[in-house]
């Protein structure tokens, strides 16, 4: 079937299924869709396609690579799209899908806890208080042996989005994907 004749919703579905296979460049066991980086696929009025992605951290060095990977994956299926980077709403680890979390754990990265909700009328003291509250994080289960008996070695791990932990039972060090 000629691409021009494909109805828009089928085209959009096809792009989603192609992009579902694009792995994250830094944690290739999960896809950019499972991480919540891939936000939208839109068929525009002029017939062209638009893919919306959002960065994890402001300085995430993988964004350029992800853009290239999206274009390359589409090109192998004779598809092309404008890739748009959008900041709002800000990416959150709460968008990582359940299968994505399982894959992270199997890979040896403890998946993030749900992001604690700041006080409703956030601002000033409340926002600072939230920092203290976040410091009293709930126990992070070891992705290797499942023990909750773990300790934080460092706030920052191999990338800005992870903290370094150590299991006090099986003694394995591991990364914890920080709630963001």
């Amino acid at each position: 079937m000629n691409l021009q004749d494909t109805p828009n919703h089928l085209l959009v579905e096809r792009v989603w299924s192609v992009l579902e296979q694009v792995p994250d460049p830094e944690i290739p066991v999960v896809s950019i869709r499972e991480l919540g980086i891939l936000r939208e696929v839109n068929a525009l009025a002029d017939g062209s396609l638009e893919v919306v992605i959002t960065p994890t951290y402001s300085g995430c060095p993988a964004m350029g690579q992800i853009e290239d990977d999206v274009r390359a994956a589409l090109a192998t299926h004779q598809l092309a799209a404008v890739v748009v980077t959008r900041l709002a709403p800000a990416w959150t680890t709460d968008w990582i899908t359940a299968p994505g979390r399982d894959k992270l754990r199997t890979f040896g990265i403890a998946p993030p806890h749900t992001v604690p909700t700041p006080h409703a009328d956030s601002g000033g003291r409340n926002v600072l208080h939230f920092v203290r509250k976040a410091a009293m994080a709930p126990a992070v289960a070891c992705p290797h042996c499942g023990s909750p008996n773990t300790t934080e070695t460092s706030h920052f791990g191999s990338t800005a989005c992870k903290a370094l932990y150590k299991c006090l039972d099986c003694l394995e060090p591991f990364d914890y994907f920080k709630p963001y």
Partner: protein
Amino acid sequence: MARAQSVVHAALEDMLHLADSALVLGQRNAEWCGHGPVLEEDIAMANISLDLIGQARLLYQHAAAIMADGSTEDSLAYFRDPQDFRNYTLLELPHHGPLAGTAAAERDYATTIVRNFLYSALMVLRWDALQQSPDAQLAAIAAKSLKEVRYHLRHARDWLVRLGDGTEESHTRTQAALDHLMPYTAEFWADADTATATLQADWEACVDDALDEATLKRPAPGGHLSRGKHGQHSEHLSYLLGEMQSLARQHPGATW
């Protein structure tokens, strides 16, 4: 028309102030890359720099779009001179007190931690407030940056307590760093209005609470008022920019 232009000009100045502050501290902290006191801190400082430089890039891109005069994030970062930079003086100072030798030889982690603490506490409050900005893109940048700076504050505050309430040596050095850096925070509040007054009260409370836990004494206010935000910098900014900008200036427009 003239009034509208001056509003845009003021908004741009503020954006460059935020961007320059993030870039200069990001560049300064990146000096620890490969030289951290322990491996974990080396990595932490590089990650914090990455966040700050990422925030600076988003702000410069947004500023360049508003300027619409051919400016780009690169021209703003690499082709402006020290007097054009609008960062707080605090952020350009080297990682040592006033009496040490060269920056490279005398890096002091207590200075790094105290500065990151004082600045992160401010930025948690400022980014939170800027989430309500009528400029939607700035509000979006603020929402992202807030998530990041919370971790920076948590990191710096934990180390402040650890060093302040640590050994005699670590306490002495952290107190010295605080005595040296605290006067530079007066600049945060120099252009006071009602919005900054609330911010200041919250910041002071956060600082006092942490200093108390860290068994550190807050130095008496007063002394020289720095004016980096207005383009009057210490000599340290020129060296920092010299190192950061030399490659881009020797090979303008280079790609690889």
